[in-house]
């Protein structure tokens, strides 16, 4: 065979070194020397391969907020609901992006006629502002006051009536500060069409109030002094700077086609997330140490091989988490710990089988038989767990199954762990043992 155990052994070492390289933190120090690990940045024949090698942490570890909004589709006809939900998603995406939150995700989910928008905001723990930013419909309208002449039953009155000028006629909105009072204002720039409409409206309403209405609330009722033709307007209102900024973002992103209500919020502070990471790492180290010790006590030299296999399993797993990338969550860490158990289960199955076969065959042969026979059990048994992982991870986004991030994190880490443990348990341990056995023979 072309690949001798020694060659495979060298391959394993190269692989492990590469995995360790990826596993290292970005900045670390050895003997007081600070080292920064460069990221992958390859350019081969026009292809650029770039990876940052950072661990992607879920909201429960990094801190952040998940908001679930339900869209009120009661006024939208059924055939237009999908489009409406899509445009809600786009508007919300634009709003959070304009707000300057790093790496937000906005997803939609439809289940039994309920349309939901799931927004994840890493690093945000003060959610009140975010909720009002995202959740407001932001339907801007300019109204004019129509006189209603006196009738027999009622005296003359005035009634605000919506004009054809709305937020959709805006080109842009931005926050400006009044040069005299220093108060924040929102400056509106209309499209050409919107500017013409605005000129018309102001022209016929000179001397009259022109209410500016946001989501059915009058925010300002300025009195028109003269026809405005420049295509710009100022909303002075009585804003705080934050509120003015928020309104500008909402106007720029456009109004939501349907109202949305917050139905679920999960917020984890960064301190709790950091504590969870610390606790998990400690638990992982203690658990792994106990397991390694147990393997050596139970299987002696073979146990040491299993422990080396476990180390290789761990670095490859963590390297893959970073490369794929897998979002690491708290349940995901539990999934990783369980997959460590499964990886060792592969080894234990083989070693027990080996003990049995050793009484019937010579050492080297017994080893090969043990690997061959145990493989059947391992393959069949792992498949059962992979079925569950598939259902939990819901890779095709089936709407009738869960889409919860932490649960998916668990399923993905467990499934990944199973595949890698097949590799580390069968390929790595087997070849380590082959090399080990050969040396024994030579003695």
């Amino acid at each position: 065979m072309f690949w001798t155990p020694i060659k495979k052994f060298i391959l394993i070492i190269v692989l492990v070194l590469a995995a360790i390289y990826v596993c290292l933190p970005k900045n670390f120090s050895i003997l007081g020397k600070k080292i920064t690990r460069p990221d992958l940045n390859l350019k081969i024949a026009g292809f650029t391969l770039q990876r940052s090698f950072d661990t992607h942490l879920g909201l429960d570890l990094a801190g952040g907020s998940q908001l679930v909004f339900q869209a009120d589709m009661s006024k939208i006809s059924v055939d237009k609901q999908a489009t409406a939900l899509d445009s809600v998603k786009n508007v919300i995406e634009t709003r959070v992006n304009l707000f300057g939150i790093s790496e937000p995700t906005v997803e939609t989910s439809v289940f039994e006629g309920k349309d939901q928008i799931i927004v994840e905001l890493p690093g945000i723990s003060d959610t009140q502002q975010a909720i009002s930013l995202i959740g407001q419909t932001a339907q801007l309208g300019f109204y004019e006051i129509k006189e209603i002449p006196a009738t027999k039953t009622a005296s003359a009155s005035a009634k605000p009536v919506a004009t054809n000028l709305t937020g959709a006629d805006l080109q842009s909105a931005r926050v400006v500060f009044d040069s005299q009072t220093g108060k924040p204002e929102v400056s509106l720039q209309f499209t050409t069409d919107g500017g013409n409409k605005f000129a018309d409206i102001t022209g016929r309403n000179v001397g009259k109030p022109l209410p500016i209405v946001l989501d059915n609330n009058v925010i300002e009722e300025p009195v028109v002094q003269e026809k405005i033709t420049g295509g710009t307007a100022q909303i002075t209102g009585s804003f705080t700077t934050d509120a003015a900024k928020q309104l500008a973002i909402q106007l720029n992103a456009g109004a939501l086609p349907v109202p949305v209500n917050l139905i679920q919020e999960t917020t984890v502070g960064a301190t709790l997330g950091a504590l969870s990471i610390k606790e998990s790492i400690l638990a992982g180290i203690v658990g792994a140490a106990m397991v390694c010790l147990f393997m050596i006590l139970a299987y002696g030299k073979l146990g040491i091989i299993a422990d080396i296999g476990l180390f290789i399993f761990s670095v490859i797993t963590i390297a893959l988490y970073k490369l794929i990338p897998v979002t690491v969550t708290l349940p995901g860490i539990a999934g990783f710990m369980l997959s460590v158990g499964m990886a060792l289960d592969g080894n234990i199955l083989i070693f027990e089988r080996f003990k049995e076969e050793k009484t019937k065959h010579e050492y080297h042969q017994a080893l090969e038989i043990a690997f061959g026979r145990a493989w059947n059990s391992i393959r069949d048994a792992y498949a059962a767990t992979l079925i569950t992982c598939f259902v939990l991870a819901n890779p095709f986004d089936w709407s009738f199954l869960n889409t919860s991030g932490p649960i998916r994190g668990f399923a993905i880490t467990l499934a990944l762990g199973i595949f890698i443990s097949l590799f580390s348990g069968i390929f790595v341990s087997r070849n380590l043992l082959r090399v080990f056995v050969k040396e024994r023979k030579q003695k």
Partner: protein
Amino acid sequence: MIDWMKYRWLYLLISGTVILTGLFSLFKWGLQIGIEFKGGTLIEYQLGKNEDQSVFENIVKTNGVQFISVQKTSTGSYILNLGQVSSDQRQKILTSLKTKAGTATELQFKTIGPTVGSELVKKTLYALIIAASGILLWVAIQFKSFKFGISAVLAMIHDSLVTVGMYSLFGHFFGAQVDLLFVTALLTILSFSVHDTIIVYDRIRESKKNYGESLYDLANKATSQTMVRSLNNTFVLVFMMVALLLLGGETIRWFVATLLVGSISGAYSSPFVAVSILVTWDEIQKKFKKH
């Protein structure tokens, strides 16, 4: 060789006791349903000084929010279980706590509307049905036998009953709540249960090819052959899970506890439930054939 199958009455006694205890607790106290399924709010606070339950209860109730429970974590923070909380009420509670305890920070905030729960229950049921039928199908195909498949599924049901029953006890005595993580753990246990069963079955299948002994002897042999592996593997899982249970923090404590109970039950049930049922079934079948 040890005659494992001779002591089937003992396994029935052990399983029976555990399951009946669980069922008793389940009927008497039920399960503590978490906010993910029934709606409500969970807030974790870090306070400047220690406070009693009555303080939290007062502040929460004054602000017109339903108070369910408060729990102190191992790190000294407090987890409050409340009814629906508006963002205005949330601010007021935080302010009141600040005045009372000097400082107060929200470590975690989770609120779930009342309509979300029913949706989740349905999704959970679908997941359970799909996973369980997938596993059943896999066992049936692998072992080409109805008998093997049903016995494996009965062991799976055994493990689920043990886990749910124990969780009811955890809920009653320690306040463990049924949430999405519990469901995840339960699904994982289903597959772990079958994982172990397949490994024992596999040895029966292998010996059957070679020797053609009676199922009773094959079962004894397979049980002996897999016993050490089963024990060692359980030790490994127990070490990992206990470390995570004791050191891994509050959030996944009950999730890990469930996995721990389930994996022990899964390892136990493979020879002592699945294979025991298989052997008993075979014996009954033979008796009928004789008559």
